[in-house]
């Protein structure tokens, strides 16, 4: 699993403006990945990675099969509250 590292602008060697721009881009990338993960966009990628880590030979669900399977699991227990 990978994470996007966001370093403080002051720690970089590039000119100040460029360093700031890179820092902002990295921060935006991190936010974007966070939103993707929060809403479930990256769930299939996580699933493939987990299956590959656990076993060499796995039969993977297709993205559509995984999507339906995930929803069925998620909505068969309380997941929205009062």
């Amino acid at each position, binding site marked *: *699993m990978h*994470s*996007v590292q966001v370093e403080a602008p002051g720690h970089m060697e590039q000119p100040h403006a460029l360093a700031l721009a890179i820092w902002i881009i990295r921060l935006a990338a991190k936010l974007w990945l966070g939103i993707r993960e*929060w809403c479930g966009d990256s769930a299939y990628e996580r699933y493939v990675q987990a299956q590959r880590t656990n076993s060499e030979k796995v039969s993977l669900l297709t*993205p559509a099969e995984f999507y339906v399977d995930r929803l069925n699991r998620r*909505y*068969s227990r*309380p997941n929205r*509250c009062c």
Partner: protein
Amino acid sequence: MKRPISMVIWIVVALVGAGALGGIAFHRGEPLNATWFVVAAACCYLVAYRFYSAFIAARLLTLDDTRATPSERHDDGRDFVPTNKWILFGHHFAAIAGPGPLVGPTLAAQFGYLPGTLWLIAGAVFAGCVQDFIILFCSIRRDGKTLGEIAREEVSQRGGFIAQLAVLAIMVILLGVVALVIVNALKSSPWATFTLAATIPIALLLGLYLRFLRPGRVLEASFIGVALVLFVVVAGQWVADSPSWAHVFTLSGVTLAFALIAYGFAASALPVWLLLAPRDYLSAFIKAGAIFSLAAGILLVRPQVLMPPLTRFIDGSGPVFAGKIFPFCFITIACGAISGFHSLISSGTTPKMILRESHARFIGYGAMLMESFVGVMAMIAACAMTPGVYFAINSPASIVGATSDAAAATISSWGYPLQAQTMTDLARAVGEQTLLNRAGGAPSLAVGMAQIFSSTIGGPRLLSIWYHFAIMFEALFILTVLDAGTRVGRFMVQELGGRVWKPFARTGWWPGILISSALIVGAWGYFLYQGVVDPLGGINSLWPLFGISNQLLAAVALVVATTILLKMKRIRWIWLTLIPMTWLVIITMTASYQKIFDPNPRLGFLSYAKALAAQITAGKIPAVKIADTQRVIFNQRLDAAVTAVLAAMIIVLIIEALMQWYRILSADRKSVLHETAYLATRWPENFSGASYTATAAEPDVPAMEG
């Protein structure tokens, strides 16, 4: 040097919080600015999180980051997914934040702003957050087991069964009452009804897109969906302005109730990807947007709180619901301070995704603080309108009258001046035919939100758009609770039915799906219908019933937590759960007793039934209304029976727990803690479970379907 500076900062935060709380509590006379509420709440939350939750984490639970969590032990990319703590915080908050913290404080504003605000803050800090945090911890240590399973293992078999029954009971009552909130918000409102109805085809469209066109691409589909929903909010105005279309979407309470019942059945029985899940995506985005917008709006506008700190209705004579400040302020606030339902989330999805034990503090304790803040914002929005307007919107016609003149005269006589013209003008400004007698909290909250939003963007010209945006936002995520809850209830009914006849438990068996869906929808639909036809407005009976069942489930969760802490030999700190548990038992028992036996017909179910029966005997009810009145009498007796069963359940559970505690403390029998065995984590210390990048394992995945 760092430590003294930190100490000074925390002393300042504590003093500012204490000062703001003091200002709220002792201010009299001129209206108070909402900033006081925001500052008081924020400072209390900061101090509570920094010190109280840290104390619980270190001393009571001794969280251990060297221990592998369920997401590491069972990482399967499906249920058990190691998740970054900020993202899991978002998941957890989206799951626990429902309509309760918006509606409860709005209704409790009838006592004035003070009691509700104090309980929202204190209740969350000392009870709600503690419950969520400890149950999350208990579930993490038990491989993500549910509250019912934990209760069965740690308290007793019967305790587990009671917890499961309590969950089913709360689910049915919850769904009935939130459906009633929607009905009262939509009745006679073609704009709001069209907007909400249009979200159904939008959700279906999204469902098909996500299933066949771009499987799992939730973000892009949600953008499309949210844009369409915002468009139909505006388009609703054109529908309301067209006489022929307005007629189609102007529906009575009873018609709306049956429409919701049909919707609930369809959402439960249809494949989850078609309607339920896409609606949930829409709701999650709009919920997040609306809550952040409300927070920003309050900070920018800083409205004056016009409601007095205490109203004359603390004596129990309130028009919105009957009952004295104790215990009904606590029962009515419910989810914003402590919610039993949260224990289902804390022992459901979240423990299976948590990365490290220490994250339980931020997610369990922190997310509940945020929910409490939503409750405080709802209280501000409700109290920022003139008290006369608040009471006119939330009181039933049987108390204030059905016309503007009658309502204005009655409410003014209570000491809250109101002009009839004010209500007519306000209704016109928000694009409604009337705002009178709209009990349920949603319309008054929408008026409050619309006034705050329109003071920021658009001015009075956009008041009607903001009002209908707020109604859509509330109704949309109430519908999400309704369809997700109905589906989960269906599974519970199928599981129970499966004990009698095994094929019934098969979740893919169509007759089982249809029968169980009909049973669960019929159960909450009955409560909804009785609320719609109730002459006292429905909310008066059903919201306290919901509050009692919710707080009862919280008491169940705290009984389980206390038992586990005793088994962990944390006797010295047992008061942390024992005091909130005792408090909840006292308020639920007192409220249950009063709702069943109080001689005031507006408060006591049995005395209301008796008074109606006496009217029939005395010939005061016209012949054509006798059948309806007898049905109301039956409903009151049914509500009394349901309340009595709920109270009996908690008494049995407490007796079970006391026996278990006696055994633990007397060392009569060695107590067994059912934690999973310690397994050291293999993850490096800096592993954050941060967002996965597709490039890491772009696989030869099977071809897409469709």
